[in-house]
């Protein structure tokens, strides 16, 4: 339920405000896509944490580039 609500909110953002951030992302997939995937695969709590971590990495000193959501089967490692 919680994860559904989160995904709804992310979708809402993606279809409206994300407009202004087209092309600005340092990462592929973008933070919102990443968050939606993370919540889908890891559940609301862990997914949110993953998304938050990703969001913090999006700064001028972050690495950038291709950065997919870690698979659910893989153990999480802190980058």
């Amino acid at each position, binding site marked *: 339920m919680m994860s559904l609500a989160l995904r709804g909110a992310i*979708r*809402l953002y*993606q*279809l*409206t405000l*994300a*407009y*202004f*951030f*087209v*092309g*600005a*992302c*340092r*990462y*592929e997939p973008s*933070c919102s*896509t990443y968050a939606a995937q993370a919540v889908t695969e890891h559940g609301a709590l862990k997914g949110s944490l993953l998304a938050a971590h990703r969001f913090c990495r*999006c*700064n*001028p000193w*972050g*690495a*950038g*580039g*291709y950065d*997919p959501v870690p*698979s659910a089967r893989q153990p999480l490692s802190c980058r």
Partner: protein
Amino acid sequence: MDQKNFIVAIVLSVLIIVGWQAVFPPSKAPPPVTQTAAPNAPASAAGQPHTPPGAAGAPGTPGAPGTPQAPAAAGAPVVMSLDQALAQAPRVGFRTPELVGSISLKGGRIDDVRLVKHRQEVDPKSPPVEVLAPVGVEHAYYAEFGWSASDAGLKMPGPDSVWTTDQKTLEPGKPLRMTWDNGQGLVFALDIAIDDQFMFDVKQSVANKADKQVTLYPWALVVRYGEHKAEGSTVLHEGPYGVFNGSLKELSYGDFKDNKQQKFETTGGWIGFTDKYWMATLIPDQKSKVDVTVKGTGAGANIKYQIDYVGSPITVEPGATGGTEGHLFAGAKIVRMIDGYRDKLGIDRFDLTIDWGYFSFFTKPLFWLLEWLYVQLGNFGLAILVLTVMVKAVFFPLANKSYAAMSKMKALQPEMEKMKQRYGEDRQRLNQEMMQLYRREKVNPAAGCLPIVVQIPVFFALYKVLYTSIEMRHQPFFGWIKDLSAPDPLTILTGFGMIHWQVPEILHFFNIGIWPLIMGVTMFLQQRLNPAPTDPVQARVFQFLPIMFTFMMAQFQAGLVIYWAWSNTLSICQQYFIMRRHGMPIGKKAKVTVLPPPANSGGESGGGGGKKSGKGSSKKG
């Protein structure tokens, strides 16, 4: 599924737009102040002046100062024209660079203050804005300085007392002295001085020619008749307010209906009523403690609001003279002047008379920057354009980096799509391939969302400044924009100014001006430069967003729309050049699939590079 998503998206977007409009109501031009008599106003006893301020308070309670009294509700007053109302009492006129008006000798009232430089409408020939108005006109609004005594036997000057003076006019540097003799040995005097801005300096004094000492309480009040609909209560405060012991309290007219009142105590500060652009504010002696009362009396059309202060008692020995000094600000809330008074007169937090909102730490500096640019350039519209260039300049390198990355991404997009299709289910493999692609192509990450995020406060601050500050009111831009703080007047439904008719409220949403249309076009062009989102639903919704924003922004101040259109234009130019430099075909989908190794193409991102596509600039947007 896509179709369903799409509908959901549209519904959500509409919800957002509706929500947006609820949070930022479109600014409306202030309703013109009615000057002539309303023909159907309920008529009865003529504007009954109020009972003497001191009379109601004191008897039986020695020591308790009689608080100044608002006039008792005495039936709906006859509404007359300003000229008629002014003719009701002898007056001393004044005319300064900013103000024109008069002081009524009856009651010693400051009740006629009009602003020379501020007109009710954009048209410079429209009537001046009335800040204070005498009893008799539709919304009387005046200030009084007086005395009350704990000894009920003493006669105090009241609203019917006619003061005497031998002066015909009041001028800056030539104060007006009015006196009133109570016939019991007390001679009251009011010395009113004005400057060439909006401040009245009022010295109230009593000469005791009787044979016993008297103790009197000086007071001052501002009274305002009638209901006042706040124009933009969600964006800024309008109503009674004040700074009490260093902290600002913003009250609303509604709190004082049904004869309610509130009392405060303060040393230093100010009290008064404010509208969006104008205010009447009393400033007591900043060093002594005063008791403040805010109250409403009467109901319906007869409602009156009063804010007053009663100062510490002053004891005057026989043969001596005692008094106090207060100030009245009646005029436009011009930032420079208000800050000037705060410093010159030492008025505690006088700058808070202007509601800059929670983000004043950002809004006010932005205002100062705009104002400075205005002084240099002579036009607020130009100032906004230059401000935009400055903001863009700060983020120029970062944006360049983003556009360079964007070009590259746009070129790589087809290949990434192909990989996603090829390895569809095999996430492990896809990840590996993508990593390799990124490494091979040396994609430099974009600047991230930070440079865009920091522009949001600029947008909101500009909105607030355009909405709040009198400085932006009736300020023209080139061409047909005569007021940057109002929506573009040349709208579709008026045939871009060809047809003159009152567009009904219900159609306002569709009434789009020229500048909002220009802004919509710039948004559309910018979108053509950007890579299309890979998500098909997102891509389709985004195609509609420029249209939605055109509708939405049409309700906003022209200055804000011009800012946005200009900001987009600058971005488009920058993006266009960067993409050209990176050899991106402009305006159509990249056909490049495999890229050669980087050929250093400059740019501070260092890597860059990309196929120099011969198809260069097929068309611009």
